[in-house]
């Protein structure tokens, strides 16, 4: 099978070179040789993480001259290296978006070293100065949107018990849990957020069981950080609990139960990236932003959200959008084991790299990271 693939690859390479040559004359400057590759860990229409990226890719397809190639369900193993190689060698991709967290190290780094002239953009907060210069990571401070979800949840919950169905205790997930809990406690200091880790990004039966267990504990507003929130949203709504969405807007699944949600806004960001390349300035290796930079957004409020909750949430949003911004993780922050994790007097602003290493759950979160 292996030698068969090589000959096929050479054949296709030749074909690709021919079409490229033919197209070069007709197309405008940058677009002619720009093929962009997107790699997803799951299905591209999962109502979640991958769908959000696919919506961003779809926005790129609308730009004339750009070619987008996509591959779904690529596991976080050396399979992703093979996919990257084939996108480069067969499709001529020059800009690659391996979107899943586990693709970065060692797989994407290895590929970036092997193909120094191509550009690799990874979704997550992992790029450091030691990594190749043609690699970069971009991420949105979606915890800002989670903080707002937390405010709405805290003011909607009757029991003061909120639930969070999470995949794995990695920094980005913990940051979302903590932001959600802090948002809720900013309006209801007694609110607790119970977290359940399912162990992996897509475990529908575990997610449904986690949702049911949380509701059995008296939780009446739930949110999640898993790849496809559909299971949690539908099962929680069936039990009569309220939900805050994640990744994309899930209000169509449970119109009465859906309060608001933290959504990605990749369809705004990816065209910006392409413009940066076209203008010759390149994409910064470490690209970040939140609500203000339009990398994340919140879902429109559902019908169950009270006027009081809308007002509190809108006020918080205005703070995030203001020139000074707003720090969710303020000095004097205590974790749920009683340890002070941020010393008093030093607010950690959104861009603080310390937050990318988060390994604690804040006071008010019931659960543990291991």
């Amino acid at each position: 099978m292996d030698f068969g693939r090589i000959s096929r690859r050479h054949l296709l390479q030749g074909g690709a070179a021919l079409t490229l040559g033919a197209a070069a004359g007709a197309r405008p400057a940058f677009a002619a040789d720009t093929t962009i590759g997107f790699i997803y860990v799951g299905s591209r229409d999962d109502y979640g993480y991958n769908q959000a990226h696919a919506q961003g890719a779809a926005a790129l397809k609308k730009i004339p001259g750009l070619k987008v190639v996509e591959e779904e369900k690529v596991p976080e193993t050396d399979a992703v290296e093979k996919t990257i190689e084939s996108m480069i060698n067969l499709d001529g991709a020059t800009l690659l978006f391996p979107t899943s967290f586990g693709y970065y190290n060692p797989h994407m780094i290895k590929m970036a070293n092997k193909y120094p002239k191509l550009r690799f953009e990874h979704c997550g907060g992992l790029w450091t100065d030691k990594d190749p210069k043609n690699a970069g990571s971009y991420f949105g401070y979606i915890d800002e949107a989670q903080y707002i979800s937390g405010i709405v949840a805290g003011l909607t919950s009757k029991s003061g018990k909120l639930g969070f169905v999470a995949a794995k205790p990695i920094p980005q997930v913990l940051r979302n849990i903590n932001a959600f809990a802090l948002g809720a406690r900013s309006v209801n200091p007694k609110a607790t957020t119970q977290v359940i880790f399912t162990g992996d990004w897509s475990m529908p039966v575990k997610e449904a069981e986690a949702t049911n267990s949380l509701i059995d504990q008296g939780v009446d507003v739930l949110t999640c950080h898993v790849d496809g929130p559909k299971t949690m949203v539908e099962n929680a709504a069936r039990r009569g609990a309220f939900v805050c969405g994640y990744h994309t807007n899930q209000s169509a699944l449970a119109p009465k139960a859906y309060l608001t949600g933290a959504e990605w806004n990749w369809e705004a960001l990816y065209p910006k990236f392409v413009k940066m390349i076209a203008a010759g300035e390149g994409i910064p290796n470490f690209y970040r932003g939140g609500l203000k930079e339009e990398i994340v957004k919140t879902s429109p409020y559902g019908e169950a959200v009270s006027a009081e909750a809308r007002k509190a949430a809108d006020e918080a949003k205005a703070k995030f959008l203001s020139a000074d911004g707003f720090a969710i993780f303020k000095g004097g922050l205590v974790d749920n084991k009683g340890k002070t994790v941020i010393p008093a007097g030093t607010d950690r602003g959104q861009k603080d790299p310390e937050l990318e290493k988060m390994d604690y759950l804040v006071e008010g979160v019931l659960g543990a990271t291991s």
Partner: protein
Amino acid sequence: MADGSIGLWTVPLAVLGGAIRVSTPFLFVSLGECITERSGRINLGLEGTLVMGAMSAYGISYLTGSPWLGVLAAGITGALLGALHAGICSLPRVNDVAVGIALMLFGTGLAFYLGKPLIEPTAPRLPAIDFGWWSDIPQLRAALRVNVLFLIGVVLAPILYWAFRTTRWGLLIRTAGESSDAARAMGHSVLLIRLRATMVGGFLAGIGGSFLSLFYPGSWNEGLSSGQGITAVALVIFARWDPLLCLWASLAFGGAAALGPALQSVGVTSGYHLFNAAPYILTLAIMIVTCSPKRTLTGAPAELSITR
């Protein structure tokens, strides 16, 4: 209690609820596989059948508005996949395990391909019967919301047990599984018996799949099965090809799957990876306890390719 919480009672209740909610696909697949293996064939493709069943049930329920038609469609899809397996295995020198693995990949791949447009829409679900009406504890009522398919499965297990022992068909299936020569000497076509047994097995596995997409977790997506079909096939081996033991084993697996999330919800948070692995640890433990180097697997049909 005043705040609607039931504290530590969540754990046994979740295990009970999980045994009812999560076990049904295990139950149907293992009963189906039990019939197939008793006839002397292993169909490892039931993972693919389960996923195809889930997808076709969801699709038909969405298109026709009737979840019961979806269940029927899932069964028919499963029977067709079973017929395919049996048909290929009827050819000389074909290994049923290898065909099963091929069909597992084929079934899941086809289901993902055809199921693409079904991930977003919401299809009508199967109704639940409220067995908790006598209780005013909402958690207990939720745990006792039982689907008819679960009840059918529970009734089916003793019926199969009885049928294997006392009916003509049960005897024929067992004869084909124990000694194909004997079945042939009696004037029966072994291939035909196995074809029917594999089709019935596929039919049941397909219905198990419809439970996943139409009742619990209750929607179609690609991670839906995450290996439950293959677990159920393994479950038949440690249930010693006995339908009644299949029932208990399925209930235990369902309960074990609920254990991890339930323990976390009451604050037992250390080692949740271990609790999430509970079903697999259970499998290993039972295998170790019941296996003996001194004898072969008791109850194993003699014609199975793994025992032959």
